């Protein structure tokens, strides 16, 4: 009889893990709290650095998981989680009990809730939006202010909720810099008349072809990169935004009027993941992400034997890394189940 693996979360990591486990001959249950699978992938427009359409990756994952060996339980959350000898008992919100031989946790990330940085005025001023909302505007092919007008000057704030001791997030979310560069280029493509300003602490272009994209943004599109953190945003009487920032290269304070401000919300441990950690006893680190058994050779291994991690529930990752991490989790599951009877 084939072994049963439960995968929690049907985002990029969960779908990849489920697909690969099924290919390896396991019976897989894929639990997803949302109605749709795909996670954050559904929210993105084009992906960095090659700017292919996000639906292409979604299509690949859907094909991978379109398989009789995978039972997708969407709209399902977990209420109880316990280990009995070598088996896991998972009780869902509908009261069903699922017995599993191994569990892959792929609960992913939530975007930092930008209203927590009240000084940037998200939720207070109409034309302060998040990077995810800008993606939505790209998908609808309409970048406009709340009054329907086309923005002329657009500011992009890096590190919103990342590298910020005041909100308790000391870590770098890694992908906001390249997202900002990508979005700045896309704004310029959609609105050739606009001026885009990026306010950054450091430009962390640590992935393949990121640096090239950064160079393109400067040389081809004339995006202004200003080194300095925005301290606060305000509003003028004619509904424009005023930001205060220190230009640390020029060594002087700046005040600037803008039409729109885009906040590069960082990645945080998801609420779903926190709930799982609470009911299962899985260890989390100071950054609140799940903490893996070893940072070098055990990044999929948890403190509970038979429970493995895949993807951004352990740290910020891009899609390429997430897929690799999910595949690595599958190989850990196979190793583990080989020894368990």
């Amino acid at each position, binding site marked *: 009889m084939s072994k049963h693996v439960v995968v929690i979360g049907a985002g990029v990591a969960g779908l990849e893990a489920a697909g690969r486990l099924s290919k390896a001959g396991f019976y897989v249950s894929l639990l997803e709290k949302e109605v749709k699978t795909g996670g954050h992938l559904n929210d993105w427009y084009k992906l960095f650095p090659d700017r292919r359409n996000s639906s292409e990756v979604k299509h690949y994952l859907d094909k991978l998981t379109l398989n009789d060996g995978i039972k997708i339980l969407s709209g399902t959350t977990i209420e109880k989680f316990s280990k009995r000898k070598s088996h896991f008992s998972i009780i869902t919100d509908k009261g069903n009990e699922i017995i599993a031989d191994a569990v892959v946790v792929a609960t992913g990330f939530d975007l930092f809730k930008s209203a*927590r940085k*009240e*000084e940037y*005025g998200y939720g*207070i*001023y109409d034309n302060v939006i998040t990077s995810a909302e800008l993606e939505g505007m790209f998908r609808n092919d309409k970048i406009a202010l709340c009054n329907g007008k086309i923005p002329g*000057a657009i500011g992009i704030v890096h590190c919103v909720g990342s590298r910020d*001791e*005041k*909100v*308790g997030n*000391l870590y770098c979310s890694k992908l906001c810099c390249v997202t900002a560069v990508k979005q700045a280029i896309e704004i310029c493509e959609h609105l050739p008349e606009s*001026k885009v*300003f990026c306010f950054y602490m450091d430009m962390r272009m640590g992935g393949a072809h990121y640096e090239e994209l950064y160079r393109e943004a400067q040389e081809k599109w004339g995006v*202004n990169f*200003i080194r300095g953190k925005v*301290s*606060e*945003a*305000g*509003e*003028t*009487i*004619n509904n424009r935004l*005023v930001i*205060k920032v220190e*230009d640390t290269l020029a060594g*002087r*304070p*700046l*005040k*600037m*009027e*803008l039409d729109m401000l885009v906040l590069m919300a960082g990645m945080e441990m998801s609420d779903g993941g926190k709930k799982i950690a609470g009911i299962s006893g899985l260890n989390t680190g*100071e950054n609140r992400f799940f903490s893996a058994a070893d940072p070098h050779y055990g990044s999929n291994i948890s403190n509970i034997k038979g429970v493995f991690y895949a993807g951004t529930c352990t740290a910020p990752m891009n899609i390429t890394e997430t897929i690799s991490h999910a595949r690595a989790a599958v190989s850990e599951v196979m190793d583990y189940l080989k020894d368990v009877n």
Partner: protein
Amino acid sequence: MQFDPFVIPFNIGLYFILFYVVFRCVIWFRGLSRPDKLRLQRGFFGNAFVLSLKEIFLESLLHKKILKTNIRLGYMHMSLAFGWFLLIFFGTIEADIFGTKHLNAPYKAIFFRYFNPEHGRMGFEAAYGFLMDLILAFILSGLILAISKRFYSRVVGMKKTTKLKLSDKIALTSLWLIFPSRLLAESFTSGTYGNGSFLTGTLGSWLASFLPAQQMAYPFWLLYSLSLGTFFVLLPVTRYMHIPAELFLIFMRNCGIKTGDKSGTYTEVQTYSCSSCGICIDACQLNFSAGITNIQPAYLMKAIRNNDDVSEIANNCLLCGRCDQKCPVGIELSPIRMIQRRVGDNENVFTNIYKGYFRKRLHNIPEKSNGQLSYNFLPVTDPEKVDVLYFAGCMTHLTPSIKNSMVKILDASGVKYKFIDEQGGVCCGRPLMLAGMDKEARELINYNSQLFWKSGAHTLVTSCPICYKVFKESYYLGVEVLHHSQFIKSQIEEGSLKMNFLRKKVVYHTPCDLGRGSGVYDEPRFVLKHVSRLEKSKFDDENSLCCGGSLANLKLSSGKKYKIAQDTAAELTKGNPEILATACPLCKKTLSSATETRVADISEIVAEALIVTSVKRNINKQVSSIRELANI
């Protein structure tokens, strides 16, 4: 003449400590400023002296305040202090009436039973003996509590007790030995002569039944004398110096002497008056939320007395003022901490008791300023005559919903006002002052003062309790300074604000700088009751908690701040309110990240309830142009 060599240790100790206390008081008196010396002299012949005697009786002997906070701890202190006092008092009378002559040397009273072993067999003598035994039993009951507290602090209802240094431990041991050795010495003597009352008599006859009582008595009288002598000799270098120091402190306080902002005699007397009772430790959120147990006032006072480096301790504090509120001795703990912050690492003005007499007083040499203001990049605001100035403050600019709500309220109130820092402003100066940088803060204070004066306004309204406190205490503006809760209350009373009742369940968090810091408790409650269903909490008013975000703590990690915020928010939202209201932008910011409950400033709730009839906008809004970079 009745004398025995065993009394020598006691005599040495007693005369040493008497001489020392007098010597110390003379030094302290000489260290006072001239006005304070006059205050003391006037107090000595006036009401202050009588008041002090009363307070000494209630606090130094009975320990009324500790009894109120914690009855078992209070009993422990009372039985030792008041009991010992009674023992000396009635012992002296006993020696005077029943002794060989009147006006005896002190040791005759202390060791009365040794020199008068036949005394106390019947009648009045026996009744007096009963009284003396009763007092001794009273002290011993407290001593049992004190010893158990050392090993298990919860015996007296304390979560934490203070950690001791070596000299304290020796003094503590000798203190613990005093009364049991007296008990045994008197019992053996009573056992030998077959007298003594219910305690010493009973114990004595029982001991004499199987021990050679006559031979055993002398060593215990010697031990009694030795432990007394040791305790007295060590007193100046231990925390027990609080016993004489507190008497002097009470008198100084009743004469109207205050801590001020520099170190001096009064600060010194206060630090010596700390008995390390540990009540401040239990009150401190850094202890019970953040697990930091070495920075509380008891340890700060100890470190100052020991002449240790205190900068680490002094700077690791929220300055929430909870300890000031709870200190049974009434030591001005936060002002003393602020003095230590001002002194900084490079100066040791304050030296310990050995070096006290040779104290070296260092003087601050004011640095020469180059006359250049560092804030010349700010826009020059033209003087526009208004009645009311609104100063939002930096933190309010970081919580723009408060700022927007205040603009709405000010517009609706119809007062002629100007939003003075709408386009940005200079810090009020308090964060610098909290870091001990008063001189630098003065620069900001001067800038802001001139700005306020130019407008000719008679009222200054601010949204931030941090700014409010410094405007009230360190600016000399000559205008009425109001926190926005006070302004809103006055406008409600004048009838210029019309509001709906929101029917929301609200709990109010008192900000430290507004509540304990400035004594503003009622106005925010008045406003909230006016627009919502205000609920009570366990931590109202003087007993309020700090949100954890305090600017005053220069050492605390963000993780621990977050822990304090979570604990505070959890306590306040126990009754499941719809809104956790506060009156400080910093509290709002800190608490909102630590709870799922909506956190809102009073002004936001008022703005929500406001019925706006006509918008009267008095501010001349300046639209600033896009600067250099926007036009690249």
